[in-house]
C-alpha cells in the first residue's frame, strides 16, 4: 500500500498528469465508439471507485476530499463524467443509426404531450429532491468559514474560488495580464462566438459525434482538459507556496523547489550565441516577438492551406480567422506548459521594463 502511494506520488507531476490526460483524451476522441461502451465504461467506473476508496484510506487525502469546500468539486467530477459520457453515448448511438439508415433516437421519441404533468410534475419532484439533499447537506456539514480576513497576512496557499482555479493554474505559465485578463476575456467572448463560427447544420436537435468530431473535440478539450482538469490540479495538488504535491503527500509549507527558469532571449543570446543580452529591447526580444506574431498571424493562413483546408472552405475567411485565433489562443497554454517542462522557458517575450511578458 505504502509503496503504491509512493509510486502514485512520484508519478503525480503536472507534466505526467497533463500529458496522460491529453493522451487519454486523444484516444477517446479517436475511438469513441469503443470508449462509450458499457463494457469499457463499467470497468473504468469500478477502477475509479476502487481507486477512490484506496485513496480515502490515506489520512491526508481523506482530509482534503472531505473538506467542506472541496465536496462540491468532488460532486462536480462525478456529474461531469456522467453527463459527458451520456451525451457521447447518445451521439455514438445516433451515428450508428445514421450509418444503418435507421431513424434517430430523437425522432423515435418525438411525441407531443402536455406540460402538466409530463414536465412540471417531474420538475417539482426534482425540486423537492434537491431541497432534501441541501437540507441534509446543511445538517451534515458546517459552513466552511475561515478566520477573519487580514490584509497583512496572506493565507498559504492563497487559492481562487474553486471554479477559477483553472485560471489560477494558468498564472504559473503566464503573466497576470494574460492569465487574469486576456484569456478569461477570450474564453467568454469565444463561448459567445461559437454558434456564429459554426455553420454546420448537422447535429442540430439531436446527439451526434462523428459528424462533429472536430468541434466536439475542440470544445471538450477546452472544457475537460483546460478547465476541469486544471481545477482538479489546483484543488487537490497545489499546496502551500503553490508547490505541487502528490495526492498522498503532506502539504509542507517549507517545501523547497528549484527555480531555474530562463527567458527565450537569455536562452538565445547568452546560452546559444554566448554574446550577452543586447541593450536594445527590440533587438533583445526580437526573436520572441517574431515567434509570437508568427504564431498568431502567419499560422492561420498556413493552416488554411494545409491541415484545415476543408474547414477553411466550409467556414469562409473571417469565420476561419476568428476560429483559428481562438483555437491558437487555447493551444498556447499546452504549448507554454511543454516549453516550461522541456527547456525551463519562462517567457517568450520578456520586457519587464514595460511589464510586458508573454
Amino acid at each position, binding site marked *: 500500500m505504502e509503496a503504491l502511494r509512493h509510486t502514485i506520488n512520484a508519478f503525480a507531476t503536472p507534466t505526467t498528469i497533463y500529458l496522460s490526460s491529453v493522451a487519454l483524451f486523444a484516444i477517446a476522441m479517436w475511438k469513441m465508439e469503443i470508449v462509450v461502451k458499457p463494457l469499457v465504461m463499467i470497468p473504468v467506473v469500478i477502477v475509479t471507485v476502487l481507486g477512490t476508496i484506496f485513496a480515502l484510506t490515506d489520512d491526508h487525502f481523506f482530509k482534503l476530499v472531505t473538506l467542506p469546500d472541496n465536496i462540491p468539486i468532488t460532486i462536480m467530477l462525478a456529474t461531469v463524467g456522467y453527463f459527458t459520457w451520456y451525451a457521447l453515448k447518445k451521439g455514438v448511438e445516433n451515428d450508428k443509426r445514421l450509418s444503418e439508415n435507421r431513424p434517430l433516437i430523437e425522432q423515435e421519441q418525438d411525441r407531443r*404531450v402536455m406540460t402538466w*404533468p409530463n414536465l412540471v*410534475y417531474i420538475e417539482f419532484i426534482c425540486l423537492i429532491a434537491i431541497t*432534501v439533499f441541501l437540507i441534509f447537506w446543511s*445538517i451534515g456539514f458546517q459552513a466552511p468559514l475561515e*478566520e477573519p480576513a487580514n490584509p497583512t*497576512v496572506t493565507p498559504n496557499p492563497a487559492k481562487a474560488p474553486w471554479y477559477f482555479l483553472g485560471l489560477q493554474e494558468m498564472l504559473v505559465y503566464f503573466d497576470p495580464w494574460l492569465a487574469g485578463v486576456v484569456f478569461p476575456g477570450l474564453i467568454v467572448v469565444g463561448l459567445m462566438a461559437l454558434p456564429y463560427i459554426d455553420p454546420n447544420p448537422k447535429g442540430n436537435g439531436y446527439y451526434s459525434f462523428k459528424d462533429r468530431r472536430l468541434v466536439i473535440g475542440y470544445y471538450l478539450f477546452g472544457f475537460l482538459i483546460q478547465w476541469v482538469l486544471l481545477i482538479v490540479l489546483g484543488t487537490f495538488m497545489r499546496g502551500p507556496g503553490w508547490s505541487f504535491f502528490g495526492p498522498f503527500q503532506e502539504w509542507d509549507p*517549507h517545501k523547497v523547489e528549484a527555480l531555474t527558469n530562463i527567458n527565450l532571449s537569455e536562452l538565445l543570446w547568452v546560452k546559444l550565441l554566448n554574446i550577452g543580452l543586447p541593450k536594445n529591447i527590440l533587438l533583445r526580444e526580437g526573436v520572441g516577438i517574431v515567434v509570437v506574431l508568427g504564431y498568431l498571424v502567419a499560422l492561420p493562413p498556413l493552416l488554411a492551406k494545409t491541415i484545415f483546408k476543408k474547414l477553411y472552405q466550409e467556414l469562409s475567411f473571417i469565420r476561419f480567422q476568428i476560429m483559428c485565433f481562438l483555437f491558437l489562443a487555447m493551444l498556447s497554454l499546452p504549448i507554454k506548459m511543454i516549453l516550461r517542462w522541456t527547456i525551463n522557458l519562462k517567457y517568450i517575450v520578456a520586457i519587464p521594463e514595460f511589464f510586458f511578458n508573454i
Partner: protein
Amino acid sequence: MAENKKQFDPDHLFNILKLNKWFAIVSILLLLGVVGLIKKDYDRDWKNWQRKFRSLEIKNTKDEITKVSEDLKNSSEYQEAQAKLDSAGQELKKNEIDLFKLKKELADHENTRFKTDRVFRDLKSVTDSLRYELDEAKHHNDRSVNRIATRLKKKEAELQVARAKKEAAEAVYNKTQSQINELTASTKAAQAELNKASSDLTRLKKKERAIGRSFVNDVLRDAPLLDFIDPSLKVKEIIVDDLYDDYNFAKIKRIDSCTTCHVAIDKVGYEDQPNPLKTHPKLDVYLSSRSPHPIQEYGCTICHGGMGGSLDFVHAGHAPKNEAQAKEWEKKYHWHPLKHWDDPMLPLQYTQANCLGCHKKEIDVPKGDRINQAIFLVERSGCVQCHKVEGWHLKNKPGPTLRKISSKVSEEWLSKWIRNPKSFRPTTAMPRFFDLTNTKDYESKARSSVQVAGIVSYLKSKAQPYEPPSVSLEGASIEQGKQLFGDIGCLGCHSIDDYPKIMQPQFGPDLSDVGSKLSANWIAAWLKNPKQYWPDSRMPNMRLSESEIKHLTSYLLSKRNTAFEEQKLQKADPRVIDKTTLEFLKARMTLKEAQEKAASMSKEEKLHFIGERTIAHYGCYSCHDIDGFENAKPIGVELTLEASKPLPRFDFGFVDIPKNLQSWIYQKLMEPRIFDTGKEKAYLDRLRMPQFDFTPEQAELVTTFVLGLKKDDTPLHRKPSYDNNIDRIHAGRALLHENNCRGCHIVEDMGGRILANYESARQGPPNLKGVGQKLQPDWFYQFLKAPSVVRPWLNVRMPTFGFSDHDNNALINYFRALDRQTQNYETIPELARSGDHYMLGKKTFETYQCQNCHKSPPYPPDTDMENMAPPLTLVPKRLRYEWVDDWLRDPQKLMPGTGMPGFFYYDGKPMTPESEDEVKAVRDYLYVR
C-alpha cells in the same frame, strides 16, 4: 428495443402512478429533513448543558428552601412575628362586622369618587382645548373669538363645580379608608414583620416558581417555533463595551457567550460540579462583582482567549493541557485544534500569560503567582538579553563580568566550565552551548573543543590584570565558617550542601563546590568587598571582620567537586582549528581572501580569532561583560510580539508535536536544538540557542511568559492605573528583584525564604510590612546607606548594598507608597518634660515595664537576648510620631504575630476610659525621655 416493450400511455411520457410514489417518497424525505433540522437545533450542546444546570438549580433551590424553612421554624424572630400576627388576627375578628360594613361603604365611595373624577377630567381637557382654540382665533383675528370665549367661561364655571364635587367625594373616601386602616393597622405591621423575617424564603420560592417544573416551563417555552417569545434556554452574552475583536477591516465589540454553557461560572455553590457547570475557582480575583475583574466588565476571553462568540466546544477554541486530555476530548467532544482562529484558548497552565496583556511591565502581578515565577525565571536565565522584548531589558547583565577572569579561575577550569557548566554546578543559570542534539556527532565535538579553546584564549588575552592581596588562613576554622554562613544571611541568596535548599532556583550561585573554582586570596578579597573586583556585582558587602573572612574563606575552600577536577580536558585538534578558522573567515570574505588570510595566521591568532567569532556567534556578551563586545547587538529573535506571530512561521522541522504555539515554545525550551533533527545543515547554520536544562515545570513557566508577548489592544484605561503611587511601587519592586530583598525579608506578603532556616521568625530578618508608615524617611535613608543595629538579638545582618541615592530614594518611596505615605517632612510637636501628661506617660511606661524587653545597649552578658526588643532610644529618630500611638493601640493589627503585647485596647475598643490618654502619654514620653 427497450422502448418498444413498454406500453405507452398516449397522453403521458411517464407512468403517473410511479411518479406519485416518487412524489410521496421525496415528500416524506423532506419532512424527515425538516424534523432533522429541528432536532439538530433542539439538541445543541449548550441547550443540554442549560437543561442539566436547570435541574441542578431546581434541586439546589429546593434544598435551600427546606433548609431555610427549617431555620425559620427555629428562628425566634419568625416565631414572634407569627405570634403577633395571630393575636392581631384575633383582635380583628372582634371588629369583623364593623370592618365588613366599612368595606362596603368604601366600595360605594370609590364609585362616586371615580365618577366625579371622570367628570372633572373631561371638563378639564375640554377647557384646555378651548383655551388653545381661543388663542389661535385671537391670533388670526377670527370672528369666532367671542363665541369661543363665552363657551370657555361657561365650561370653566362648570369645571369649578366639578372640582368641588370631586374633592368632596375624595374626602369621604379617605375618611372611610383611614377608619379601615385604623382597624387593620396591627395586623399589617405584624405581616410586614413576618415578611421581613421570611424574605429569604419568599425569594427562594419565587425563584423556584420561575425555574421549577411546570407545563409552561418544560414544554411551552422551549417548543420549536414558540421559543422566540420567552425561552428558558437562552444564549447568554457578555458584551464588553470597550474591548474589541479586531476583524482587520472592522473592530467589533467583544461578545463572550461562554456563560451560555458555563452557566454557574460566577455563582457560588457549584464548586464541585464538573465543567462546564462549575464555579470559577478564584471568585475573589475574577468575575464576582467585588473582585478586580467583574464578569460584566471583562468577560472571559480577555484572559482565557478563544472564540467568545462560539457555542460549540471545538469552535470556542478549548485547548487541552496535555496529550491525555486531548485524547479524552477527541473521544468526548470530537475535539480538534482550531485552525482558523488566531487566538485559541490558552491551556490552563498557561492562562496567566494573558495577565501580561494589561499588567504589562508590571513587576509582581498581584495574585499572578505563575506569571511572577515565570518573570523571575526569565530574568535569572537572561532570556531577554539575547531575545529583545520591549520593556523587559535587564539593567544588569545576569552573568558575571569576564574582564578580569584570569585572576579568578584557571584556564582549565574555564574550559571545562564553558564546555558543560552543569557538570560543575547543576543549579547554575549558565546554559550549555556544546554537545547538544545537533552537535553530538564526532565532528561537531572536535569543533566544540576548538571553539572552547578559542573562547578561553580570547578571554585570557583580553583580561585585565588583577591581583587579590594574599591572605593566610592561620587559625581559621571550617566549623566556624559553616556556622557563620548559616547565621549571617548568606543563605538568603546562596545555597550550599550543608544547609537545606530553601529556594529553587537560587538568586546567587550554589557554593557547594566553589573550592574547586576559586583561590583563597580571591575569595577573601571578594568577601571583603565584592564591588572592588566587579563594581556592578549584586553581592552586597556583609561588613565581615578579618577573622570572619578567614573562617568563611576556609569553609568555602573546603567545598570541592572532585569529579569535576578529574574531568579530562578535551584538546583542540590543529586541523579542526584550521578548518574552523577558514569557515568563520569565509562568512565575511571571498574564498580566496579567506584562504590567504588563514595561511597568514599563527595558531594563537587563529584560536583568538575563533574565540572572538564564537563569542559573537553564541552571543556570550549578552549575559557577560566582555571586552570588545560593548556595542554588540543581541543575537536572538526579537520576542516582543512572539505570541502574535502566525504559526506557519514556526519551523516544526520533523518533530512530532502538536502544531501549536505553546507546544513549539515548550519543546524549544526543553530541547533548544531539536528542530534541527533530521536536517542537513552546515555547522554555522545550525540552531544556536543553548540548553538551559529547565525542568518541565520551569519550561511551562517560561512558555507562559512568552505566550504573553502579543499585540496589545487593551484600551489604556483598562490597565491598572499608572498614577504616581503605582509608578513608585513598580520602581521599588524592580529594585527588590534586582537585589533579592525578598531572599531575607517578607515584603508585600511575599518572600522571606531565609526564614525557613531559623527556629522562629524572630530569629530571622524582620517582616517589612508597614515600614513606610513606621519609619522616618531620614532614618530610613541613613539605615539603607549604612545599616545600624536595630535588633541586637539577631545574628543575621543587613548587608551594605551600597545603593546609589537614586535607588535609595526609590526604595524609601516604594515602602512609603505601599502605605500611602506622601509627606516626606513631618513635625514632631514640641513636648514638655514635665506636667501631668508627662507624668502619666512616665507612670504608664513604668507600670507596664516597657524597659524589661526594650533594653538599650550595652547589654550585660547574662541578658536574655531571646526576648529582647528594639531599644527605645531609637524611637525619636527612627519612628514616625503618628505611627507610635497606632502601634501602642493594636500591635497585632499592624504586624500580626509580633511579640509586643497590646496593653491598651482590646478588640478595637479602649480597655479603660483612660486608655487613650495613656497611649498618647506613653508615646510622648518616648520622644522626650
